[in-house]
């Protein structure tokens, strides 16, 4: 610890010079890029939070690929209102504090005009208030939690898709129609917020619409588990009529394969509201006759799309580029991109061709109706998107190396979404069994 004063001086000076140089280089990427307001930007920058690492990258990477594909298409067609668009991706993998920091960087340093956030519900809950604080229009493009717009109101945050309530309720209604006299159910969900939340929604609605169903087992294997032998053995012994699993990604793939090996699919009907995203990976390990959902009306073989050409072009382009059929996060990303395009055009038109301010752009999203690859979505006054839901039953066909859906029901968004100003937990208790009788007709695979 001994040292001369002179040596101390040198270190200090060196340290300061070094730090100063570092500081100067830090400021470079920022610059004064966030020239905002009514001046028409030379380029439209869009910050996109998605999972590029970690287990949820099974959704994040297809989402990113879709964004790249669609941004290229927009630019090839001359941009939005004559302005080219550029996506800037940030990784949700490291967690909420990272995403919150990245959100600030995107707004204050990159000067993005719009943000798409995020896949994780926690990230959305953290970003929505930031949108209002930093006054940057933000589209919640994929996260599921219904808490965001039921607990709070935001002026700058909008959701371009449905939420957990319609996604889970639609699967239950389908089950009640397809297999009305089931007596018992077991649940195998991932042990984290989504697994718990979705079971809560399902159970609340089930107890209202069909009281007296026996819950044989509530199993919450660890998030990221790879071995489900305990759960499968238990469910094989209990013989419930129905097994619910809202799991996704590697967890669901492993569960399906292991349940298939041990013939669990022959004993119980599975209800898997997120399994559309796993079909191409598990292939025909998943037998026919089980109920599958897609967090919306997302299915590349949608039986009655509003614009069949649009869906076909979207699916074929994606398949040609990435060698896989688009799964639900691709559709969610397409919806966010579509909302952005229509929203900006609406705001520009309202300004008589001038460029809108952030507040005017945000206002344009309220009540906005925009086309999705399969139908259209309307953003309600509370910021929540109204999106139809599609649920179907698996079917094996020679045309595809994985199960496809048949007996598909497309639930109109209004019929399954919690009305404005109500909380899902309360609204689900007011449902009546007549609802099941009024469901639309099922449509077979063609």
């Amino acid at each position, binding site marked *: *610890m*001994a*040292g001369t*004063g002179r*040596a*101390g*001086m*040198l*270190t*200090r000076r*060196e*340290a*300061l010079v070094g*730090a100063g140089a570092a*500081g100067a280089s*830090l*400021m470079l*990427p*920022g610059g004064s890029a966030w020239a905002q307001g009514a001046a028409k930007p030379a380029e439209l920058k869009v910050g996109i939070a998605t999972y*590029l*690492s970690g287990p949820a990258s099974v959704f994040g990477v297809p989402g990113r690929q879709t964004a790249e594909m669609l941004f290229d298409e927009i630019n090839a067609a001359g941009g939005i209102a004559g302005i080219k668009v550029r996506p800037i*991706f*940030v*990784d949700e993998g*490291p*967690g*909420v*504090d*990272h995403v*919150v*920091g*990245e959100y*600030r*960087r995107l*707004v*204050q*340093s990159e000067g993005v005009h719009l943000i798409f956030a995020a896949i994780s*519900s*926690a990230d959305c*809950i*953290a970003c929505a*208030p930031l949108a209002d*604080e930093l006054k940057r229009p933000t589209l919640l493009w994929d996260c599921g*939690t219904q*808490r965001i717009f039921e607990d709070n109101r935001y002026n700058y945050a909008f959701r371009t898709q449905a939420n957990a309530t319609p996604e889970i309720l639609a699967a239950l209604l389908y089950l009640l129609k397809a297999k009305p006299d089931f007596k018992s159910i077991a649940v195998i969900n991932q*042990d*984290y*917020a*989504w697994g*718990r*939340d979705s079971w809560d929604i399902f159970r609340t609605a089930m107890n209202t619409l069909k009281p007296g169903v026996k819950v044989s087992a509530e199993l919450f294997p660890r*998030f990221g588990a790879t071995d489900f032998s305990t759960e499968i053995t238990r469910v094989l012994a209990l013989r419930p009529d129905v097994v619910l699993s809202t799991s996704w990604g590697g967890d669901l793939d492993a569960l399906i394969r292991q349940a298939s090996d041990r013939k669990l699919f022959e004993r119980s009907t599975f209800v898997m509201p997120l399994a559309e995203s796993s079909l191409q990976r598990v292939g025909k390990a998943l037998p026919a006759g089980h109920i599958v959902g897609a967090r919306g009306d997302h299915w590349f073989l949608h039986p009655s799309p509003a614009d069949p050409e649009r869906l076909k072009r979207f699916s074929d382009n994606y398949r040609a580029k990435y060698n896989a059929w688009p799964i639900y996060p691709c559709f969610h990303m397409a919806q966010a991109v579509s909302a952005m395009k229509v929203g900006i055009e609406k705001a520009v038109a309202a300004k008589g061709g001038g460029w809108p301010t952030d507040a005017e752009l945000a206002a344009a999203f309220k009540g906005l109706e925009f086309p999705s690859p399969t139908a259209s979505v309307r953003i309600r006054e509370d910021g929540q998107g109204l999106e139809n839901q599609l649920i179907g039953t698996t079917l094996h066909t020679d045309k595809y190396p994985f199960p496809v859906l048949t007996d598909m029901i497309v639930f109109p968004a209004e019929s399954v979404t919690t009305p404005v100003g109500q909380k899902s937990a309360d609204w689900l208790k007011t449902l009546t069994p007549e609802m099941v009788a009024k469901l639309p007709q099922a449509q077979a695979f063609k």
Partner: protein
Amino acid sequence: MTRRSETLLALAGAVLVLGLAYAVPWLRFVLTIALAKGLAVLGILLLLRAGQVSFGHALYLALAAYTVAFGAVVVPEALLLLPAAAFLAGVVGLLIGLFVVRYREIFFGMLNLALSMVFYSVLEKFYSLTHGADGIRLPPVTFLGRPLAGEAGEWTVLGMALVLALACGALVRVALASPLGEALAGIKTRETRLDFMGVSPKRVLLAAYVASAVMAGFAGAIIALTTRHVTPALSYWTTSGELVFIAILGGAGSVIGPFLGAAAYELTRVYAAATFANAWQMVLGLVLLGVIVFAPGGIWGMIASRRRAA
């Protein structure tokens, strides 16, 4: 390094932080988080002096962050929440410390890791209270009765972090030079000698452990006030690993090391993530490898050895 030059360096660092935060607004957030993590690593540094590595200090980080999140509903005053959170972290640190200080090295590290993972599971499983992995959004918080929000709020939290960092840094500097600090180093070299001198190594380590828990508590409270959203990920083992990573990166030679390490870590991460959204983890890994191979004393060691060379 002399006390005077270290003090000057710390003050220069503080001025640099303020200058950067002023010049580059979005860095305010990053620097506040870096200072908070630096505080937690300062506690790790105390334990490192005794040759003990805790892989579970995220426990105190998360405990304090959740104390702030739950406490803000009752008392939304940052100046009360901050000490309350650190106090609670200290009390829990004392209780846990009473038995973990009986263990050394891998057992010490693993026991801490296990306890922080228990807390992680509690946060996940008590779903109706904590909302599990979705976490809790902080209600509006005040500072001296005024709302802690917007740009003024960011400056206030950064200021608090800076004051805490300087104060804790000075205290730890004094403590390390005191008999307590020498005794900590004694645990690392040969513990039996302390016993022969009539000093209880357990008591010395317990004092350091509680102090480190309090500092991690301050850090957790600052993180909660900055991100305004707390999730169980704060107590996951990777967060503890991150703290140890920062300690290695910064170097254990001086109390300035943890803050250098934290700033370098956060800035590398942010800039790597901004430049290579796909491969930022690799950049971070290469930086750590580089530090281990070329500068085993961390960033501080690099500065100190250049001083010696001069």
